[in-house]
């Protein structure tokens, strides 16, 4: 177990070293975050109305509501995107083959390669929220940070299974990320990212209730904007963990099968 953790850390260290050779992207991302936070703020001011405030959960401004939704979606995107992107990068750079003849297994390579993107997403979100709090009065003081952390971790676990399935798809078909397309596509409408699901037609509200993203989003807003504790978020957290318990092992099985299949067809390192 220690060896696996050490191997995972090696990939994080590698990615950190590579990222440190590019300096300007961090500055550009910090500036982009400033503009992003400003955009949410002014859109919120523009659309603010009594009807909108009535539709939102009590006590939240549309700015806080939509920015929290965006932050959550950034994490969701990272969970869905990171595994197949790291696989694609290694394949395109020609490093996949040398990695595969080392003593580290492909699942460990994938998990290890996911750590830096998750850390970078966390940093980007921190910068976003920092700008929003400093310049636009985003209510960071209300957050229960332990609960925020647990919600984000549960979200990563729950949706990483879909990310691993996407990596399996990439191994077999070389292009595309259907899990990301499906989940982000459906959830951008029914997940409650920038508008509450209560404004949807009844049949779409049913879809929203079946979508785990909706629960994760509610939990995230509860922890970040209302300061809700872990126990009061038990229902969505348990749902996310149940999702993870089913999806993670099954995605690892599918991935292993895909890996074996590509070793049979000889397409493992094909682009």
């Amino acid at each position: 177990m220690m060896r696996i953790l050490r191997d995972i850390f090696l990939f994080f260290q590698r990615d950190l070293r590579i990222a440190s050779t590019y300096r300007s992207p961090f500055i550009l991302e910090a500036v982009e975050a400033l503009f992003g936070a400003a955009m949410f703020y002014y859109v919120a001011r523009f659309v603010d109305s009594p009807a909108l405030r009535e539709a939102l959960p009590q006590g939240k401004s549309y700015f806080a509501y939509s920015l929290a939704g965006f932050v959550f979606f950034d994490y969701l995107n990272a969970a869905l995107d990171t595994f197949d992107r790291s696989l694609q990068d290694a394949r395109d750079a020609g490093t996949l083959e040398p990695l595969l003849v080392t003593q580290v297994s492909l699942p460990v390579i994938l998990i290890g390669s996911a750590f830096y993107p998750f850390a970078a997403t966390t940093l980007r979100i921190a910068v976003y929220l920092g700008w929003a709090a400093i310049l636009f009065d985003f209510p960071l003081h209300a957050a229960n940070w332990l609960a925020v952390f647990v919600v984000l971790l549960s979200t990563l676990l729950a949706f990483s299974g879909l990310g691993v399935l996407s990596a399996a798809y990439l191994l077999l078909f070389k292009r595309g990320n259907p899990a990301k397309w499906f989940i982000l596509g459906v959830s951008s409408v029914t997940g409650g990212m920038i508008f509450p699901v209560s404004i949807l037609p009844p049949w779409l509200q049913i879809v929203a209730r079946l979508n785990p993203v909706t629960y994760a989003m509610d939990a995230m807003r509860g922890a970040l904007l209302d300061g809700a504790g872990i126990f009061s978020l038990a229902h969505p957290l348990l749902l996310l963990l149940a999702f993870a318990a089913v999806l993670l092992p099954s995605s690892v099985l599918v991935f292993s099968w895909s890996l074996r299949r590509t070793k049979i067809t000889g397409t493992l390192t094909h682009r």
Partner: protein
Amino acid sequence: MSDPAIILDSLEKWFPPALSGWRAYVQPFAQPTAPALRGITLEVKQGEAVALLGVNGAGKTTLLRILATLLLPTRGNASLAGHDIEREPAAVRRQIGYHAGSDLGFYARLSGRQNLRFFGRLNHLSDDFSAGRIESLSERFGLSRVLDRQVRALSSGTIQRLSLLRALLHQPKVLLMDEPTRSLDAIAAADFRHFLKTEVLAGNATSMLFASHTMQEIELLADRVAILDEGQLLAFDTPTALRARTLASSLEEAFARLTGRRLYSAAESKSE
């Protein structure tokens, strides 16, 4: 008598046809119809160097990739250092140093040293051991001066040498090398062959299976030569025995006679 380093028993590999367009979606499930290796049986003894000789598409790289656990055979068995490549791939990988013959495979934004240390750690080498090996091998390969430069700033020949160094870093029992001197200049290639002959193979602790198109390299390094053609093993013997069997004056000529291909002489080429 020690166990063979590599045993291939009736090894076969077939690939499915490459499909494009919408049919690419059934590619992973397509039936293999194109033979790449057909019933290869051979043994590489401990400490022995065996060359794979064949025209492009003969199956040399496929064979090396099966032994490196990057491909699964369709039929037959293969074992390396006593470990079955299908059932014990992790144990096989512990024993091999694999050089794919490409100048890709490094992180362009990291230095040569950072790359080598990273791969050393993935092979579970201690930092001290890894640093010592990198130091001594880079000095031996003339890489000391460029080791701390980012890989993107290195020539393809230098990256090739880095890749050879990486394959040797953990002192593997079996070296699998696909055209090891392909991108090297004549001097670096001769130096690397000399290194393999005098420092890697001399102790009989390391075995090597390598693919090459360079007859001089095969003559120098190989104890035995496996001649492959269209996935079949046509002959497997010492260079001297192959020449004697075909009444050829050179290995090149022996290869041409065994595969039924015409070998143009220098005089013929000049006159044309």
